[in-house]
């Protein structure tokens, strides 16, 4: 009996190790290949050496990456764009959800339904009209002490951020979470003299930690992985995010070692975030059923 239990747990462990290995192999291959010259990457491909740092190992590919692409600039851009989108996304979407959940306003169910309906429209169908639209928007610039107004948001940071702050799915997540927080807490705060914003800030939001973590992760991942939109709206190299950088390597003769080195560089921030917020990340996927 005891032996059979041990055997079962050993088998379960083996299955887990196998699954973990399958998941880890691409990342290990990427990291290991980033240290090898191209000829060796392809030479090792048909053996286990493809996953081992053996042979001619060096950081040459990483040095070459920085020669070919302004990688540091792209990383800073993506960190900035993703962080601003997450912070503003949490604030705006939670406020919207709070209003829809707590305030008694006529037609709020219709508004909520319309917001949810936008979920079924794929971004690709909106992309071109959105390009035209953002190109019509006014742009304010401080020039010394005078405020100048020009037209068009193309080739700016805000065009990569603002269209992605309001998010129907984030509003939905917050709304559902707020609905589970007893309204009696609002009433008690109200008796103590709190206004709507104070209730939002000091009562509801502190209790909505799990929803905030989920929204933060589900906003960060697409912002970090953003490719199509910046491709369409950003022309200047100094404003490009990291994902565009990967295209720099696909020339007529592709240097695969450099591709792997760059891919490793842009994966590191996501891996660090994953390690830091591992529990919230798993909870977010489990609770939302969405993998970013």
């Amino acid at each position, binding site marked *: 009996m005891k032996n059979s239990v041990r055997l079962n747990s050993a088998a379960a462990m083996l299955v887990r190790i196998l699954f973990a290995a399958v998941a880890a192999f691409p990342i290990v291959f990427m990291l290991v290949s980033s240290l090898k010259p*191209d*000829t060796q990457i*392809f*030479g090792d*491909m048909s053996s286990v050496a493809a996953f081992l740092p053996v042979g001619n190992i060096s950081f040459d590919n990483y040095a070459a990456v920085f*020669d*070919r*692409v302004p990688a540091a600039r792209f990383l800073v851009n993506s*960190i*900035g*764009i993703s*962080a*601003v989108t*997450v*912070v*503003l996304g949490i604030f705006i979407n939670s406020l919207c959800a709070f209003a829809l959940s707590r305030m008694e306003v006529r037609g709020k169910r219709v508004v909520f339904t319309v917001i949810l309906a936008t979920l079924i429209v794929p971004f690709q169908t909106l992309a*071109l009209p959105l*390009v*035209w639209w953002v*190109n019509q928007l006014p*742009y304010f*610039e*401080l020039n010394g002490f005078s405020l100048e107004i020009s037209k*068009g948001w*193309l*080739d*700016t*940071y*805000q065009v990569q*951020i603002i269209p992605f702050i309001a998010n129907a799915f984030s509003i939905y997540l917050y709304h559902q979470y707020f609905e589970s927080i007893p309204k009696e807490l609002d009433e008690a705060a109200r008796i103590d003299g709190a206004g709507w914003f104070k209730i939002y800030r000091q009562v509801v939001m502190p209790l909505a930690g799990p929803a905030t973590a989920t929204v933060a992760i589900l906003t960060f991942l697409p912002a970090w992985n953003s490719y*199509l939109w910046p*491709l*369409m*709206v*950003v*022309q*200047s*190299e*100094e*404003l490009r995010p990291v994902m*565009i950088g990967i*295209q*720099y*390597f*696909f*020339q*007529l*003769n*592709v240097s*695969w070692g450099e591709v792997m080195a760059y891919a490793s560089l842009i994966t590191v921030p996501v891996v*660090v*975030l994953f390690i*830091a*917020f591992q529990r919230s990340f798993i909870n977010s996927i489990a609770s939302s059923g969405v993998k970013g």
Partner: protein
Amino acid sequence: MNKRFTRILATSITAAALIGSLGACGKGSASATTEGSNEITMWTHNAGNPEELAAIQGVVDSYNSSTGAKAKIKVQAFPQDSYNDSVVSAAAAGKLPCIVDIDGPNVPNWAWAKYLTPLKLSTDLSAQLPSTVATWEGETYAVGYYDVALAMLARASDLEAAGIRVATVEQPWTKDEFQDALTKLKALGKWDYPLDMGTAGSGEWLPYAYSPFLQSFGADLINRDGFQTADGVLNGDKAVAWAEWFRGLADQGFMATKSGKDSTQDFLNNKSGLLYTGSWAADKARAALGDDLVVMPTVDLGNGPKIGGASWQWGVTEGCANTDAAMDYLSYSLQPENLAAVAKATGTIPATDAAAALVPAFAEGGANRIFMDFSRNYAVMRPETPAYPFIATEYGKAVQDVLAGADPQSALDKAVKAIDANIKSNGGYKN
């Protein structure tokens, strides 16, 4: 520890958010450029290709510092794979720059879409390789500094061991000789598949690489008389014969239906004996194999060897506010020393003989001169019609279907039906 780390990370993100917010006030240098002033912007596809970009920048710097410069040219580089998408988006927003880089076969489509204006250059273009000048409806819309050429690469030692003669421009391999060569190479037993045709390729590679075989069989992508239908041309007997031959290479075990991701690297690692690729791979192969490398023309399948003509070229946009300066720059840039500098940096075929004379590898007797001969003798322009991007997509699908085992006639009929419907729905792509 974990909590502390999380707190530090959260603080860092907030700080980054604040910094980002400040940065959000910034605007790109491309937008800051006012085309109405004496500066015009030029878009190019070679971000990530430092050699080519430096060569282009060199031409621009030379023009900008010349006494006759009519404007200051500003270079804006984009990655090649996503370049077309960036241009189409900019066109939709009315934000195209004055000068753009264009892949040759797309020129008629961009001219038809009113992205481009006909070129009025002070330079005589008759000295250019024909495949480096793009025309549509009698007007020249783009001109290139270089071309590339398709070829067969092999090791002389392998050919000798198998008793196969080296194909030459004067005497390329016939269909039967090619079959015989592949049989002999396979018999050497050195490779799983002796031939690598880059069948893992996608996008423009499919029509660029494989439609020349179709044309060598006597078929084509479209009836070039008016460019209104592909019926009878892309699905006729000769086209079906091409598809059966192509699929037969895989069926006989000569090539993989899906090759490795990097065919050149596989060839250099001795995973194939015969590589079908472009001139861009020659320098890398020569550096690795030295004198053992042989560069041969592609196969004559009945109507002579064929290769795709036209590479990246330059055009001036319809909305350019300073067309005069844009044309002046392009005329200036076509000087032999400029073409030679770009060809040297990219290993491509210089567009004129005068420029080739300045590049040792392409001068008479140079190691890469043979590619110039291929280009002059075998280049067939991809159909000069605005429908080309659609034709290319449908033909690419047909190639992949045939490789996957689809009935050749059905696969080609399907492509023809889609192409004809597209041409009809666009009113025949009339100007």
